[in-house]
């Protein structure tokens, strides 16, 4: 799985961006966005990447279908969290409304399949288009507000969406619940069971989307996004199109959430409008996945999503007869992670590797070029 390798390899550059990139820029000591990385660190990252990729490819053959479904859920949450990462992590615009885009994606796929007989894979493309347009339309007025106010406006979206679904969707049992038949998601590859097919299809889409995101943030656009996040006024003075950057990021980010929603129909086998707070919960989950994985890192959303779904699942039945405590345990574990790893898991690993790399190169041969001083 290439993203994880390549992503891991460049991780340090983009990882920890809130601190690391701002500091050299401000001090003027280092003009580039990507400080050089000690070779040992690069090697360590490649090894980690290879191991993770191998694990990701082998997992669906090892685990039973129930676990594979959980892993697939992690994948779609990772995709949505990556979309949010582009908007919040890199561009600094907080959205609590991505659950709504996710919901639009889910219902787009479910409705196109059930009422119009579309193939599932094609509905994903429709989902991308619809959500990008929707994200654009919502992104334009959202330009006028920022910070907490933007969070509140987008929160409205997440709360509104189930009502809209309840009003216009008439599904099974007379409620806003759509369930495409199982046969619509059959494996297209011989030798892969349905659950494995769903996993690999999701994984492939995630890899593509992560590579796209990586390409986006490491180039000119990415620098513009980070500039918008860190210092809007300074960004405009150097010619960054503030409105364009924000709206485009909003649209792209919404499209990611839409793809996640489409995939969720295949994995959970339903699109649900019956629960008034479901899409609000989803929004929060995307934020949490991004944060505990590491905001503004390339692998953070994936790691965060995996940790999130496994935590959720494993706290459920941890204490026999005390299921009511599950949300508390789950919450406490999340707090513990954020408390000890404020930069997220990937951010924390990056920091650890950077420290180890510095130590080993300081001990061993003299460095061929100066190591950036970021010892704080």
């Amino acid at each position, binding site marked *: 799985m290439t993203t994880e390798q390549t992503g891991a390899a460049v991780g340090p550059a983009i990882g920890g961006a809130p601190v690391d990139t701002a500091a050299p820029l401000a001090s003027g000591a280092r003009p580039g966005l990507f400080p050089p990385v000690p070779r040992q660190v690069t090697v360590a990252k490649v090894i980690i990447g290879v191991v993770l990729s191998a694990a990701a490819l082998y997992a669906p*053959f*090892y*685990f*039973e*279908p*129930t*676990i594979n*479904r959980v892993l697939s859920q992690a994948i779609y949450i990772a995709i949505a969290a990556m979309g949010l990462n582009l908007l919040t992590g890199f561009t600094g615009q907080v959205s609590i409304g991505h659950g709504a885009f996710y919901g639009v994606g889910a219902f787009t796929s479910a409705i196109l399949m059930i009422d119009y007989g579309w193939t599932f894979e094609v509905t994903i493309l429709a989902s991308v288009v619809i959500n990008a347009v929707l994200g654009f339309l919502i992104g334009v007025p959202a330009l006028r507000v920022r910070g907490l106010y933007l969070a509140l406006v987008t929160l409205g979206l997440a709360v509104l969406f189930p009502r809209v679904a*309840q009003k216009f969707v008439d599904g*099974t*049992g*007379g*409620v806003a*619940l759509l*369930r495409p*038949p*199982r*046969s619509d998601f059959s494996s297209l590859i011989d030798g892969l069971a*349905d*659950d494995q097919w769903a996993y690999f299809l999701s994984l492939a889409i995630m890899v593509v989307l992560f590579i796209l995101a990586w390409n986006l943030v490491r180039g000119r656009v990415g620098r513009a996004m980070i500039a918008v996040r860190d210092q809007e006024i300074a960004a405009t003075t150097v010619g960054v199109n503030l409105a364009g950057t924000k709206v485009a990021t909003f649209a792209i980010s919404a499209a990611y959430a839409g793809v996640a929603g489409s995939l969720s129909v295949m994995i*959970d*086998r*339903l699109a*649900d409008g*019956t*629960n008034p707070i*479901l899409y609000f919960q989803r929004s929060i989950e995307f934020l949490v996945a991004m944060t505990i994985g590491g905001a503004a890192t390339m692998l953070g959303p994936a790691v965060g999503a*995996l*940790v999130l779904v*496994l*935590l959720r*699942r*494993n*706290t459920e*039945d*941890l204490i026999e007869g005390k*299921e*009511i405590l599950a949300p508390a*345990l789950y919450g406490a*574990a*999340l707090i*513990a*992670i954020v*408390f*000890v*790893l404020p930069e997220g898991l990937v951010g*924390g690993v990056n920091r650890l590797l950077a420290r180890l790399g510095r130590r080993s190169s300081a001990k061993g041969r003299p460095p061929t070029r100066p190591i950036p001083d970021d010892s704080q």
Partner: protein
Amino acid sequence: MRGPKFRIVAALLALALVGAACSGRDDDDTATDEDSGGEEAAGSSIDTADCVADPTAEIEGDEIKLVSSYPQSGATAAFSQIARGWKAYFQMVNEAGGVEIAGNNYTIVTEDKDDQYNPATTAQNIDELVGADGENAFATFSVVGTANNLAIRDQLGELCVPNLFAATGAPIMGSEDYPWTLGSSLSPYSLEGKAFADLLAEQNPEAKVAMLVQDDDFGTAYEEGFQAAIEGTDIEVVKVEKYATGAAEVSAQITSLAASGADAFFNGGTLLACPDALTKAAAAGWTPITWISATCTSKTLMGVAGQAGDGVYSYTNLKDPLNPDFDADPAMQEYREVVAQYQPEADLDNAIVGYGWTQAALLVQVLENAEAPTRLAVMESMHNFEASEEGVLLPGVTVHTGDGDNFLGEAYQTMQYEFEAAGARNHFVLIGTELTDVEGETLDLTPEDLING
């Protein structure tokens, strides 16, 4: 104290939760590898050609696993008492050696999850409990709710996993198109329409009726079922109000219904919406002749209504534990004794515990009648079933399916709630001594689209 070691320990503890409880894939036990269900069992009325899991595979081992999903917490928890009844019955059967199918004895094992009456959660619960290919359970049993059962019906049908004794009276549970789902002894909701229409014909033949129904197929069954029942009479529906599925508060709807000038009230609410409707109607000074949903006749919900429930009508086909007339009844005594022994937390006076108990008794009969320990055989047994005097069924009630009749509870007796005082043994009093038995007529008495969607 907050050194790096502390941080590392905290992080490891949190992450340990992530890694817990992941078990490996076991490819041996999937019955799906073979050409599943290709051969149609001789003489079977159920089409098994497209089954994902082979319905003719026999149970391995000596356990039969039943799974369920029903509301267990929050404002919808009242229905969780049903399970205490069936769990107690199964424990009793297991203690006595288990259930015998085709000469072998099987222990009944159950597992259930809370869905808070939300159909999407039911779907996820059942998907997980049954497994992607039906490998984790033999059948589902007593899943509560109309929309909830409809949310799992297609998937279970594709898998060919029996969905037995669905705890809903929606006539759609008797659809021929979905042979793997069948309802319980709770009478079809369209018959409540008929019963209320018959009652009004006696008491107020020109009644103007206001209806409160849930905004889903459960409510549609009441609305259309009653409309069909009053066809050709002078009874007229003047107003229908709907409330969101699972809502507990309906005062706006009651204000509107009370203002409609109706002198009869069909309260199709369930869970807390039902007593809330009664209380709000009483508070508004609106005193129509009232029918309440048979799903609302439990002690919990009528207890919430209290004085406001006095005089309301409904029907049943079970003996009510609160009714002193049944105190000396041997079936009622056995029920009380066994449930108290195995499920001490159960509310023995609650009629829905008796409902759960009775469904378990019927299921055990269905299993014992099956010709083989297979899903197909059990489903066929369910489709050709006759029983009476099981559980706490009223004397004379016969539960019967077969020959295209997919409705179990087609006999009922109308009853009226008598509220004496708070804390007293308030209960429904059966009206008259005669059962109304419409065995085999539900298809004719119910609008076609309520059954086949």
